[in-house]
């Protein structure tokens, strides 16, 4: 197995507010990213997947605090624990954009409306590579060309509102790849796009990953997208990574009840006679302050038993590289039935 590029160990993130009790948005996250591989981080809205991704670049708001855990990044200058760096420090800034970069969900609002896309891409090249503006622009044009923006030379002078959603996201990708990062974080990059454009962008990302050999952390709530792009998957529920492993294995034999429930709620194309009703997960997601001390899925789990509500399940290895956090895996069935 290749050396991991970035590993997040036992990370928790707490949001503080002067008027309300603290909210632990991310409780216990362990993730490992390896070069050339894509890890999909899956979960419903508000489960902490974006917060986790932003924590890697230390882009969280000032009221967010990484309480425990470490984010070990094995970069150009040896291992650093990103969780211990100051967000606006030179060390952090030399990683951002240059070694780890990010694409965001909404390409319209994520690009400055009053600067040309060329200007916005040039900037990052000038900043990290110290090129002259003219050389940077040439590089920008080459990049735009590489991500499939037609007429790159002219489009570099266009403003974001003059481009279509797909082109904007391509420009965003060009910006993220400008300094050939080792890790690309994609925070729901296709959610705001229509299905055709989505497929094109996914193809592009896969192809660019082959070209650049970078690791990718891909955040989405769309399991179809996961199947297309990911090598590994990590399923998050209410701040916990409940299951992770090889994407095919997890899809085929999900071990955690939440993952199982997710899989059975995906609609499938079938002949009318074979159709079965989708099984929704009962109940709704509790707010983080009502979360059980133990497994966060307890309140909605069909198999919940004795230790679930009170004890945090351990990270249990199911098979090579396949982990889940569930008491069903450690306790015998008899115990479960008691």
């Amino acid at each position, binding site marked *: 197995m290749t050396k991991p590029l970035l590993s997040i160990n036992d990370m928790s993130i707490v949001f503080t507010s002067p008027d309300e009790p603290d909210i632990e948005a991310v409780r216990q996250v362990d993730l490992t990213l390896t070069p050339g591989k894509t890890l999909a981080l899956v979960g419903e809205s508000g489960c902490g997947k974006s917060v986790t991704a932003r924590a890697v670049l230390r882009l969280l708001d000032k009221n967010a605090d990484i309480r425990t855990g470490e984010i070990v990044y094995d970069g150009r200058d040896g291992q650093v624990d990103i969780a211990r760096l100051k967000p*606006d420090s030179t060390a952090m800034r030399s990683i951002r954009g240059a070694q780890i970069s990010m694409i965001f969900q909404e390409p319209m609002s994520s690009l400055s409306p*009053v600067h040309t896309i060329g200007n916005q891409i040039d900037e990052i090249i000038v900043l990290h590579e110290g090129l002259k503006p003219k050389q940077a622009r040439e590089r920008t044009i080459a990049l735009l060309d590489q991500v499939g923006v037609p007429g790159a030379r002219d489009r570099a002078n266009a403003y974001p509102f003059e481009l279509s959603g797909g082109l904007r996201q391509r420009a965003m990708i060009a910006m993220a790849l400008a300094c050939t990062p080792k890790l690309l974080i994609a925070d729901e990059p296709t959610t705001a796009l229509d299905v055709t454009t989505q497929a094109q962008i996914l193809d592009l990302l896969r192809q660019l990953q082959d070209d650049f050999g970078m690791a990718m952390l891909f955040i989405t709530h769309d399991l179809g997208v996961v199947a297309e792009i990911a090598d590994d998957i990590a399923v998050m529920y209410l701040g916990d990574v409940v299951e992770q492993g090889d994407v095919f294995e997890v899809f085929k034999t999900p071990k955690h009840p939440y993952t199982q429930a997710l899989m059975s709620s995906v609609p499938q194309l079938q002949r009318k006679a074979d159709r079965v009703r989708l099984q929704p997960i009962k109940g709704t997601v509790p707010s983080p302050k009502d979360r059980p001390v133990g497994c966060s899925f307890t309140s909605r789990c069909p198999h919940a038993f004795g230790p679930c509500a009170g004890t945090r399940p351990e990270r249990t290895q199911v098979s090579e590289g396949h982990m889940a956090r569930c008491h069903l895996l450690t306790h015998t069935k008899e115990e479960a039935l008691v």
Partner: protein
Amino acid sequence: MLRFVFRRLIAMVLTLWAVSFVAFAIIQLPPGDYLTTYLATLSSNGDRVDPATIEALRQQYGFGEPYIVQYWKWISGILGRGDFGQSFEWKAPVTTLIWGRLGNSILVEGLAVLVMWFIALPIGIYVAVKKYSLGDYLATVAGFIGLAIPNFLLALLLMYLSFVWFGTTIGGLFSSEFENARWSLPRLWDFFSHAWAPILVLATAGTAELIRILRANLLDELKKPYVTTARAKGLPEWKVVLKYPVRVALNPLVSTIGWLLPALVSSSVIVSVVLNLPTAGPLLLRSLTSQDMYLAGAIIMLLGVLTVIGTLISDLLLAWIDPRIRYGSK
């Protein structure tokens, strides 16, 4: 872009024509005319005037004629000969009276605007970035005090303090020896040694307002995703803030430049009276009370011109800094 400017220019000419029409109507609205006021002054002094002389004057000034005819005479004089008519009270052509004063107005108030922006911009950015910090609260308190104190009171306060502390009187824009001199270095120096007080007074309220607006705009912009994108590039925080959100937050401020100038002229009247400044404000006030219609009309007209030019400038600036406006108006 050229077409944009061209269309704005046409609109500007039409607006000015409308302004002139309304301005002329307004100065004729009060009952009577300059001669009635003049007569009243004379008779209160015990002088008797020959009705025939009055009638002759009335004929000469064309007071008896219908509005349109009077307006036509006035406007054709302005357009054809640059002649704004005669001031009855000063017995001199309006043009010789107003240029100097209007120049002073524009100079003082223009400098006030510059000072305003110069102070408000860094403070506004600071308080938005450091929201709810001690500096933010201090600036807010100071800003509201500046907003709440009437300008003339501040002017009186400054006069009092400078007299008590330094034994000098502030007031006027020039020492007597420089009053009518040509511009030179000593005169400039003299001007600034007088003008700092009115400029400061005029700038305070506006500064407070600008800080509040900039803070509110910037707080909105700082939360936008493109700021996160800029941070994710690895830019230093100050560069992130200055290049992106500040640039966008400036738009609403730039669009206010248009009416800033005329607003300053009209709000500075009392300050000008208190500080005895030779600007256009007091002259306008005086001409309105004595129904010196051509003088009043000319000043109102020129204020209109200032507004329209200010609006054009702010439109052009906006189009320059915001591509969405530039391309939206093709």
